[in-house]
């Protein structure tokens, strides 16, 4: 069953078409990589899928609801982590968790148990009352991802989650992503690190607002006769 499905989803800004009639499906529990160069339309597409931006034409269904018609239903079922840091640096770890738990309508008792579990998992118990701003970037990103999972969303959208972190932390971050996928969460990840594309179940390659290729990394490499995803991307982008 597909949890995300779009039909000729299009967004224009004046004469410029940022996203040009993209049609694709994402299966439940899948790690779906959304790849493309800067300006290829990834972020615009992601904004339409999360209800931040209205489509010019076409349709997007997320978790069984039309994003633009029933945004409230969709919003409750999705998590989001932006490439810019999505927690508040002047609040402590505990306060951030409390805030996002509250915003997503969790009960106080639930927030308490979830906070304890989350802190234990990330081994941050000792830092729970420290300001988030004092944490190293890698930790912040891991924390932000865990907070995005707090309300048990069915889908989490990750917009360039690993930009700016070191390779080791990036690996650890992907372990968290696998863990979430393992319990049935669907993950849609945009990235421009081609090696990360190898970690995805399926990837789509966007070029100039269109999806030029969509398959498993293995199939894509065979199809384009490439050693790695980086080569696949270069071949597609060259056209």
């Amino acid at each position, binding site marked *: 069953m597909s949890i995300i499905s779009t039909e000729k989803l299009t967004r224009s800004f004046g004469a410029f078409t940022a996203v040009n009639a993209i049609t694709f499906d994402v299966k439940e529990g899948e790690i779906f990589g959304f790849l493309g160069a800067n300006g290829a339309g990834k972020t615009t597409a992601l904004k339409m899928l999360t*209800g931040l931006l209205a489509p010019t034409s076409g349709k997007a269904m997320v978790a069984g609801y039309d994003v633009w018609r029933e945004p409230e239903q969709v*919003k409750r079922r999705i998590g989001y*982590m932006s490439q810019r*840091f999505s927690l508040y640096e*002047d609040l402590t770890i505990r*306060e951030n968790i*409390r805030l996002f738990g*509250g915003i997503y309508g969790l009960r106080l008792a639930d927030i308490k148990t979830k906070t304890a579990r989350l802190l234990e998992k990330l081994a941050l118990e000792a830092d729970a009352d420290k300001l988030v701003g004092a944490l190293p970037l890698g930790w912040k990103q891991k924390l932000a991802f865990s907070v995005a999972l707090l309300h048990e969303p069915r889908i989490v959208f990750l917009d360039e989650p690993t930009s700016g972190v070191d390779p080791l932390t990036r690996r650890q971050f992907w372990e968290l992503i696998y863990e979430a996928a393992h319990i049935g969460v669907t993950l849609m990840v945009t990235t421009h690190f081609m090696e990360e594309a190898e970690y995805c179940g399926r990837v789509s390659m966007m070029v100039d607002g269109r999806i030029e290729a969509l398959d498993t990394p293995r199939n894509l490499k065979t199809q384009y006769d490439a050693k790695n995803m980086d080569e696949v991307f270069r071949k597609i982008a060259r056209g």
Partner: protein
Amino acid sequence: MNRFSAFVQKEFRHILRDRRTLLILFGMPVVQVLLFGFVLTNEIKNANIAVLDPSKDLESIALTSKLMSSGYFHLEKMLDSPSELDPAFRSGKIKMAIVYPPDFARQLQAGTAQLQLIGDASDPNTATTLINYANATIADYQQEKAVNSGVIPVKSLMVVQTRMRYNPEQKGVFNFVPGVMTLILMLVAAMMTSITIAKEKELGTMEVLLVSPLQPIQIILGKTAPYLVLTLLNAFIVVLLGIFVFGMPLRGSIFLLAAECVLYMFVALSLGIFISTKAKDQMTAMFISALGLMMPTMLLSGFIFPRESMPVPLQVIGNVIPATWFNPIIKGIMIKGVGLDVLWKQTLVLGAMAVFFLGLSLKNFKDRL
């Protein structure tokens, strides 16, 4: 409701943890009230005045016309009885009144004539300046008379008696406490809200909020509610300073004053939200607020410079500044002790502004984010 309270709680934490914000919030009003203690003198043109002239003889008519031709005054009203003085001042239509005795020409012939100038000292700078102008013109008139008759008077022919209404000691504080209130409430409410919303946009956390189940209106209210509370607290501090440090009166209803403050804050808050929909980052929000709101509030609302002396285009611009309408409300309530029966017009204008800007900023907020 849990959603909303969690959000408001966060907002209070932001404010209380940021020393700079706290300093602007609570240090600024005190410093400004104390700073604006300097009395500012200004030139005035075409101030509205009333004349009560029961004698209506050649001398009084000649003196009145000389006063009117000076360019400083504009004859708003001829009064028929002393009982009309009070309503004319209370309504704010006149800044000064000239009262002649019933037999002015005869008194003048006899040697000394009594003449009364009454100024509206709820605006002491304007009142003093007007009285000085009037005195100078009257002295001029006597001089001319003396030259024409060929007699150099030994002493002044007229005894001019001056009275300042509402604020007999002409304290400048009566002018700047209300002025600072309009400024501080605008600063805190509009500037701080625009900055705090722009900050979320700049840091990228606004996207996270918009993707969450929070409604845009909840985000706006959640971000402004703490500032509404803090601004009210601020207004209270300024009024207390005015009363206990500078001896300002509070002659009207304190509840009306509070209600008018809330109304003015709604205008300011919605202006702040409107600015934040236009500004991408905190710096821009701050500059737009400072140039677009603070400067006009200080310069064009009549707080420092009398609106009477401004060129017409600036007076027109002044009319769309909320402080222009809020300033007379505070003065009216605190100094003159008047109520809604007099201030209904200003209140109505502020109300209309609140509705207009709130609607505009809500529409913009949805469109832009």
